[in-house]
């Protein structure tokens, strides 16, 4: 049996479908593609460790709060669920690990950040960087500058508007300044959002 649909009915469904499709619910890629940064943890934490995932909602309010601490903030697409990996060494809190994404001119760069308990940087690891510039030599060069630095110390390497390296930053990074700038911005966002979005979780961990 053939059902005859009126042209108005078809037009209504076409319009409603298009509207439905355009509205974004801010979803993620399929979750089966999510992977723990196990390789990064093994590389950046050499001693015996164990880790625990803490998933939280990074909210629009968190994004706005970060903007008060930095001249830039996370992308709106990052307002979603994110994981902080909490590291324990011999049952003591040993640090944190978080992966963050930054846009480069060739696409997304994903960096896994190792953070000390006092919120200085322990190190980083390119989890995804499709430029040949993201090699071990350049990563080590950037790491030597930012390792052990706090949020304030890292911020001093950046210009006022956050769009370029400061004079101190230019003197400090001897290789790949564009990649160093991208990494530095990622470091600052990571440290700030860790304290903003996981504040209660970290407080609870400290109490135990």
């Amino acid at each position: 049996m053939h059902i005859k649909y009126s042209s108005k009915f078809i037009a209504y469904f076409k319009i409603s479908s298009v509207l439905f499709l355009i509205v974004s619910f801010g979803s993620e890629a399929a979750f089966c593609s999510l992977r723990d940064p196990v390789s990064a943890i093994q590389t950046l934490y050499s001693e015996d460790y164990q880790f625990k995932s803490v998933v939280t909602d990074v909210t629009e309010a968190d994004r706005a709060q970060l903007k008060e601490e930095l001249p830039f903030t996370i992308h709106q697409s990052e307002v979603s669920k994110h994981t902080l990996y909490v590291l324990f060494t011999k049952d003591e809190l040993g640090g944190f690990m978080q992966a963050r994404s930054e846009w480069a001119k060739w696409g997304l760069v994903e960096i896994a950040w190792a953070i000390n308990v006092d919120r200085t940087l322990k190190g980083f690891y390119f989890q995804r960087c499709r430029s040949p510039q993201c090699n071990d030599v350049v990563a080590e060069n950037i790491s030597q500058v930012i390792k052990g630095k706090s949020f304030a110390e890292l911020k001093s390497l950046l210009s006022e508007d956050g769009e370029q390296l400061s004079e101190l930053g230019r003197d400090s990074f001897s290789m790949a300044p564009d990649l160093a700038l991208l990494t530095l911005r990622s470091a600052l966002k990571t440290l700030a959002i860790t304290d903003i979005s996981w504040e209660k979780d970290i407080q609870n961990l400290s109490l135990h």
Partner: protein
Amino acid sequence: MNAIFLPITLFFAFAILIAPSIGLAQSLNSPLLGDNSRWSLDTSARVNHETETNSNAYTYALGLDIHKVFSSNKRDIGTLTFQPYVVKLKNVSAPPFFFDNGDDTQLNWRIANFNYSALSQGKLNIKIGHFLIPFGLELNEDTNGTLRQFTFSDRGIKADWGVSINGVYSKLEYEVALTQGSGNELLNTHNPYIFSGRLGTSSHKNLVGGLSFFYGDVLTENGVIERKKIGVDTSFYYYQWQFLFESSFGQTAGNDTINSFIEASWLESRERFKSYLQLGHQSLEVDQGKQNTTYWAIGLSWNHNNALELSAQYKRYTDTLGAEPDFSMQVRYRL
């Protein structure tokens, strides 16, 4: 045009109707699934133009995607990934064998497993459930539910029920699995099985290599087929370009076979638009001599906020078997 558009439109109209229940489910998210959980709904409608019969075949899918990490006070215990899908076919001339016919509806399992990771923090995990067969390029690229596929058809199976050990070291990744050989079917009477595995270099690097093996009896429409394969795969990334290569040799039902696959793809810098070109070749020794099958495929996809994806693929065989060209389009939406 309406003949193609109307069924897809009605499918998404149905999705609009269930949208209020999505809001309810989200509000129940925490109590139902607890901490460290995420979930979404995945809908897709695919139209495939069958050149031989000059007709359109439709595939509609509505599925759940749940991801939950179970943890104790100071360590992760394991991860649950649960993706059941209801798949409705319409006018499909050659449906997968677990469908009764080309207009059937079945529960389809994409990924549904628990990966126990408390033994040594990622170096030795035990996975149980339905998961991707660890062979070749499949493990490092998520192609579930997409038009873009690699070489699983050569082995006759993409994902299977079973158990695996898997792990990640700083420079190596591995997975070895013993599975049922029955794909989507949890219960069967033909006693198939597959023993498979892959050892690869770190998947986050721009140059990745892997060695794989596949041995077993795979369930098909007409009973089981014995397949033995050894494979090698390589992925190389250069800015927005990705190059993939996989080659395997072995036997299918006792006949020697060699399979090769290459793909070049380009991803726009904001990662919304992707295009790819694939070339595949299979050589099979049969009683009458060597049977060669070669194909090329070109595909495009565009996504909006990782939620809406529109994709199209044209695939053409250049062999002597006379397979007709295949043109597919898909709309996919994750809520």
